[in-house]
């Protein structure tokens, strides 16, 4: 529960920033290119499109947004099932279906360009493409990638040839078919948009309904089978939804780019969360926003193909997520590493100061010299300085005039905790893991900073007898004077 709250808290802001950035970005970029004269009409265009004033635009934008939502949702499962390349192949395999449907409809009714038959043709061929891949995998020794490559190119080649025939039959109408390759919402009819919106909604609902079942099939299909789930049928349903979203996405995004709408939102969402449910929602949101922006911009500027804008928007989200993602974003990982590094340095310094005060119990001395601290570990000059400054700022240490430092009152408490953990771990290593006392300090050093509270509790339990007096004495000699003990070489180095 707390995890979820934290997740929402952490991500809400970022999501808002994304939305704002994109909206501002899209409203500025056309303004720049259009120049000053057109600014007024452009502003009214903007308002018209994004405020949904124009009924037709409203329907097209809604349809494409829903398409993005559905693609983001089913795309999550597609990516987790590791079938991203298969979806690329099956979207390319739709081309001969589109061309054949067009030719047939031209012969039958004289008008080849009707969305429903074209979509059905596309769907049939993408199923055929998938079956071809399965057949090659099954009956030949070819590797999966080769099978996918062969099917993709053969079907696409066939499609290009059939497109040539279609153009010869009815050049005027066939030209419109290019929107199925590159994606163009401008040519979308009201009824087309309605069909797309309805289908996308169904696909989205199916993803939510089958959440538990799909996630199990993606994670461990074999186990699902032993549990009596119809894994093959669930798998088929998943692929059917992918095909459905692909074919209804053809007109808006185009068959070359539709795969991006399926994969990129899911891949972006992965950077923000470790939870499948959150990933699903985020991916859906990324997809929907991409669809919204893409179709909006393309309604604004007729010669900008929607497919390209949608995919570019999605990839903006991707780049943003890769950098800023709160779970796996590069910045996050980098910050974590930095923070851990600092924590280790802070704790080391605290421990050294504490152990120094243990060996020098007389309160009169105004602390240890910084140079003595420096020799105790392999500090670099700047790292030590920075750590001292950091701890000073936190008021855990006092810094005196002639380069001497000691622990403040609150610092003592923090240091006590650090030392306790260190000694627990050392003692554990010696008593239970057979590490010689001489090297135990080093091994403890490496691990103690990442000990979890749970492990500390277990250690305490295990070492209950020894921890009665709260702070164990160090299992090895501590020396600041270089008189004896294993630290001596370090002091002189």
């Amino acid at each position: 529960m707390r995890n979820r709250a934290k997740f929402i808290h952490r991500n809400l802001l970022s999501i808002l920033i994304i939305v704002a950035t994109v909206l501002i970005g899209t409203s500025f970029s056309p303004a720049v290119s259009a120049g000053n004269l057109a600014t007024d009409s452009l502003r009214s265009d903007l308002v018209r499109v994004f405020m949904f004033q124009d009924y037709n635009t409203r329907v097209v934008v809604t349809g494409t947004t829903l398409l993005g939502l559905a693609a983001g949702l089913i795309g999550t499962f597609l990516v987790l099932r590791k079938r991203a390349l298969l979806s690329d192949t099956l979207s390319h395999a739709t081309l001969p279906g589109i061309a054949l449907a067009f030719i047939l409809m031209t012969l039958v009714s004289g008008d080849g360009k009707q969305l429903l038959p074209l979509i059905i043709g596309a769907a049939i061929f993408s199923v055929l493409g998938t079956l071809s891949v399965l057949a090659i995998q099954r009956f030949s020794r070819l590797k999966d990638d080769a099978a996918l490559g062969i099917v993709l190119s053969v079907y696409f080649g066939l499609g290009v040839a059939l497109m040539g025939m279609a153009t010869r039959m009815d050049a005027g109408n066939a030209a419109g078919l290019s929107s199925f390759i590159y994606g163009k919402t401008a040519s979308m009819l009201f009824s087309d948009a309605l069909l797309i919106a309805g289908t996308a909604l169904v696909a989205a609902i199916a993803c939510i309904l089958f959440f538990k079942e799909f996630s199990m099939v993606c994670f461990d299909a074999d186990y699902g089978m032993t549990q009596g789930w119809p894994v093959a049928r669930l798998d088929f349903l998943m692929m059917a939804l992918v095909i459905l979203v692909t074919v209804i996405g053809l007109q808006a995004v185009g068959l070359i780019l539709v795969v991006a709408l399926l994969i990129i939102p899911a891949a972006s969402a992965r950077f923000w969360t470790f939870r499948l449910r959150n990933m699903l929602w985020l991916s859906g949101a990324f997809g929907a926003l991409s669809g919204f922006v893409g179709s909006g911009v393309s309604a604004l500027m007729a010669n900008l193909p929607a497919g390209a804008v949608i995919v570019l928007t999605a990839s903006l989200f991707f780049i943003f997520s890769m950098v800023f993602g709160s779970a796996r974003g590069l910045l996050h990982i980098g910050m974590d590493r930095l923070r851990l590094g600092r924590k280790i340095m802070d704790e080391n310094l605290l421990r050294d100061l504490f152990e120094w005060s243990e060996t020098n119990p007389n309160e009169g001395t105004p602390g240890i010299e910084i140079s003595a601290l420096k020799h105790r570990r392999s500090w670099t000059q700047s790292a030590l300085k920075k750590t001292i400054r950091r701890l000073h700022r936190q008021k855990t240490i006092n810094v005196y005039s002639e380069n001497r430092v000691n622990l403040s009152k609150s610092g003592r408490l923090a240091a006590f905790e650090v030392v306790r953990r260190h000694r627990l771990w050392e003692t554990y290593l010696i008593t239970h893991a057979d590490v010689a006392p001489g090297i135990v300090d080093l091994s403890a050093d490496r691990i103690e900073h990442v000990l979890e509270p749970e492990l500390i509790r277990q250690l305490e339990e295990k070492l209950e007898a020894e921890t009665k007096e709260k702070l164990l004495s160090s299992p090895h000699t501590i020396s600041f004077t270089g008189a004896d003990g294993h630290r001596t070489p370090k002091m002189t180095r």
Partner: protein
Amino acid sequence: MAHTRKTAGSKKNYTQAQAPLCVKDLTVAYHRKPVLWDIDLTLPEGQLIAVVGPNGAGKSTFIKSVLGLVPRASGAISIYGKSYESQRHLVGYVPQRESVDWDFPVNALDVVAMGLYRQIGWFRPVNKNHRKKALDSLEKVGMANYAYRQISQLSGGQQQRVFLARALAQDARLYFMDEPFAGVDAATERAIISLLKELKSVGKTCVVVHHDLQTVPTYFDHVVLLNMRLVDAGPVETVFNEENLKKTYGGRLTLLTHALNEYAKTPQFPSNTD
């Protein structure tokens, strides 16, 4: 050697109707290459049963074919006297750890809850009760504190325990475990073996693929020696001997003699190692 197939099950006096697992004439082939030949086997109830054999002997394949994950070329399988399909709910499966992608975006509790999906049924989400049950299973394998940890951040031994917890959540009567001891440290091994003993004490049957011959006599009651054919199967005391091991493993004897020497040092079958 090729003709000395023993029908280990037939010489026992378990009535086959009650046996947790009864296999008759099982043959399994991958791409027309037979991996298991004519396996006849009846396993006793309420015992810890080791399946041993060299790499590639078909141990995993044996379990998978029993569970219907690999098609059988021939043969019949019954679980507690009925077909596997009708007894699925009584059978728990702990696959080899490498069989899934541990980078999947779920936490340990989510994985364990998968053992309850069947109980939960279609479309219904995992609710508080189910989560509580899953947490209980995690507790049993000593992993309750890792319930909300993303599975990629678990160590190999911890992942193995999560898989065990998932099978436990299902509350089966017969468990198949594929190398649960692979790549775990001594502490986890002890935790797993005490879990197995606990399962045994409440009357469950565990069939465990095991690679460490030295621990077979101490951990298990019953052993199945497998190498494409069934070499022998029966109580450890009677079938876990040099001759059978030689038949199972062929020439690699140094290791075996060592294992047997170890075994000889413990005159009685130890009922509890901990």
